[in-house]
């Protein structure tokens, strides 16, 4: 385990104090002292930052991203002569503990995601405004990326490192042998699926044991049927779930359902990737991180990509391309070195240092040198560059608990039974968003 040394105790303490504090009504005095203890812990942790040094909390616990961030950090240290202490935490634990982490004694800079997940903590005042950093790096990013880094108050809180598109991946050799054509409309997709099924393939590779991958299908269908803005508003619960438009998403999905892998609920995305690699499935809707699974260079070179077909509105304008990057904690906001590091992330040089190691993602800075891109990388980057609007992913665009507690189980049930209950989805959504 890659735990921050000493962190668990502190986290637990603050949690306990919090729970204690919850009893304000019952035991006012003890709650007050608990609160005092809580703030004491927080300020105590701030002493580590000083001139020319910063701490960096990283969720990049997998081997390749971990090395890539190390490469970025050492490039920054070489350039600025600041000292960076990196604390790498297991990817999922980092996410699970983020609330306690940000309220306890967080590192100065930390890895995070764009979208609602960023805006939420910005609104709660737990992360630092870095608009001044954006004054220097702003011209290096597209407007879409700037928008994705901006909080609800119009200030910037996030510096993108890389992104990766979601779409259909397939093996060129299989498609050539069978003479399949890339579908650009829903009808063509359906016809292709039928043809593939006739050829004994699983038309659409699909895995949903972990419950989140199905969000990709939902997001694309919703954006293609109801438009990008509706999807965003639905994610933010500005639109009701209990309306025909949402029902339309599930009804259209029903057309695809017989062609998606019937064993989806028992498989992880990695297992489904193997099925694509073994030529058992014809195509696979996932993020481009799927290519990490193809360790055989021959297979990797045989993988190609096409965007989700147009369905009703806006053609193929919207693309789902989650952005990962860096943020500053509230405490890190006062650290000059931490700001410098985020500014460095916003330069081509910084992103190249990362990309040199982790090639499954795409650089986001305009002045990044893309001469090392493969033809495949260029294609993926082209899809994002051409997109009129970029969504993140349901669990990044919406309240995380809406994804994990409500939509994901509902989709699993839909995959099993083909049934959905919009009134219930709306009622649950109300309860989830009321808690925030």
């Amino acid at each position: 385990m890659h735990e921050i040394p000493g962190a668990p105790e502190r986290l637990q303490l603050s949690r306990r104090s919090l729970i204690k504090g919850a009893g304000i009504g019952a035991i006012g005095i003890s709650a007050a002292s608990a609160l005092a203890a809580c703030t004491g812990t927080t300020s105590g942790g701030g002493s580590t930052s000083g001139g020319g040094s910063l701490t960096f909390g990283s969720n990049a616990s997998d081997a390749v991203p971990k090395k890539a961030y190390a490469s970025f950090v050492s490039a920054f240290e070489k350039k600025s002569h600041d000292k960076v202490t990196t604390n790498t935490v297991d990817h999922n634990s980092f996410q699970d503990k983020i609330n306690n982490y940000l309220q306890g004694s967080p590192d100065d800079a930390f890895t995070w995601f764009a979208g609602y997940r960023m805006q939420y903590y910005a609104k709660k005042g737990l992360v630092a405004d870095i608009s001044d950093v954006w004054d220097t790096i702003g011209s290096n990013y597209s407007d879409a990326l700037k928008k994705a880094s901006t909080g609800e108050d119009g200030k910037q809180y996030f510096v993108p490192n890389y992104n990766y598109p979601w779409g259909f991946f397939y093996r060129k050799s299989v498609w050539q042998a069978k003479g399949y054509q890339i579908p650009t409309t829903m009808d063509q997709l359906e016809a292709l699926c039928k043809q593939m099924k006739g050829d004994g393939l699983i038309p659409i590779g699909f895995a949903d044991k972990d419950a989140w991958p199905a969000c990709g299908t939902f997001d694309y269908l919703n954006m293609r049927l109801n438009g990008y803005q509706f999807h965003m508003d639905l994610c933010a619960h500005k639109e009701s779930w209990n309306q025909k438009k949402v029902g339309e998403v599930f009804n259209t999905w029903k057309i695809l359902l017989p062609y998606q892998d019937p064993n989806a609920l028992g498989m992880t995305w990695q297992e489904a990737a193997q099925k694509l690699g073994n030529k058992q499935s014809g195509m696979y809707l996932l993020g481009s991180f799927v290519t990490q699974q193809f360790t055989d260079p021959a297979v990797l070179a045989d993988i190609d990509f096409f965007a989700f077909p147009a369905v009703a509105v806006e053609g193929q304008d919207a693309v789902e391309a989650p952005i990962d990057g860096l943020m500053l904690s509230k405490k890190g906001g006062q650290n000059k070195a931490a700001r410098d590091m985020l500014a460095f992330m916003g330069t081509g040089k910084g992103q190249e240092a990362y990309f040199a190691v982790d090639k499954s993602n795409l650089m986001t800075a305009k002045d990044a040198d893309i001469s090392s891109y493969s033809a495949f990388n260029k294609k993926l980057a082209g899809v994002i560059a051409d997109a009129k609007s970029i969504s993140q992913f349901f669990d990044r665009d919406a309240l995380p608990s809406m994804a994990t507690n409500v939509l994901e189980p509902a989709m699993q049930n839909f995959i099993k039974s083909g049934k959905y209950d919009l009134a219930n989805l709306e009622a649950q959504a109300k309860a989830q968003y009321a808690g925030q």
Partner: protein
Amino acid sequence: MAVTPLETTAAAAGQGTRAPVRRRRLRQFTARDRVVLAIMVGIPTLIQLVLVWLPTLFSIGLSFVHWNGLDFSDMKPAGWSNYQYIFTQYTQFWPAVWHNILWLLFLGVIGTPLGLLLAVLLDQKIRGSRIYQSIFFVPVMLSLALIGIIWQLFYSQDNGLLNFLLGTAGKPNAVDWLGDSHINLWAAMVAATWRHAGYVMILYLAGLKSVDPSLREAASLDGANGRQTFLRVVFPAMKPTNIIIVVITIIESLRAFDVVYVINKGTNGLELLSVLVIQNLIGEGQVIGVGSALAVVLLLISLIPIVFYLSRTFRKDRLQ
């Protein structure tokens, strides 16, 4: 967990016999004894109070608010709405309750009797009894999370041992043991039983050893056959063990969590109350109010067997 009921019995028994003569006894202690006793009893009580009872009370309090777990100012009173949400809208709640009940029935009807059977068989003077005991007891020493991982290797659809033995591995008709929501709960319960049976076996082996051999002798002199001896004499004589095992079975089925969490985080047919509590309380998507309300529901359900058990023990002590 297993130790708790035993400890409680011992503590309760001690207290029960002491109670009527407390006054005279206390005087026999020196002042120093009393200080030592006060410290030895007081500190654990205090720890218990701070770490168990206060959080319990806070959980009950939190179940009546809407809160995201971030700032106290974000806390809004919710009345009974969290409970209303759980009982009427939360689609996973009633399946979870049903799964917990199934879990209890499965352990009660299959797991526990299996453990008893193993104990009875191994209690016979067969060769290598120790070796068999060790084999059946090994799973008890593994954590349930590890058991979940081990059984995933058996159950995996394409590469699993089970489908391989059935000759269906890699074929389209291979049973999807963990992905099919009609089967996966049973698969998980079998994995849990694998461990539970060993546990029950050890407890019953101890119980069987404690049965006075003269009872068996008397039974056989009276002409009872083996089955009669066991059912009419030995089994009733193990009443204390039986009660402990009933309580353990109930507790095990209420706190079942690790196996399903390792398999798929307790989704898609593997929902359990404990999983729902965690899902709502831990992680980015914290819904503290709902999670606390679920925890309170689970607490109330758990109180039933605990109250039953404690009232039995106390009543018995008083009779003595």
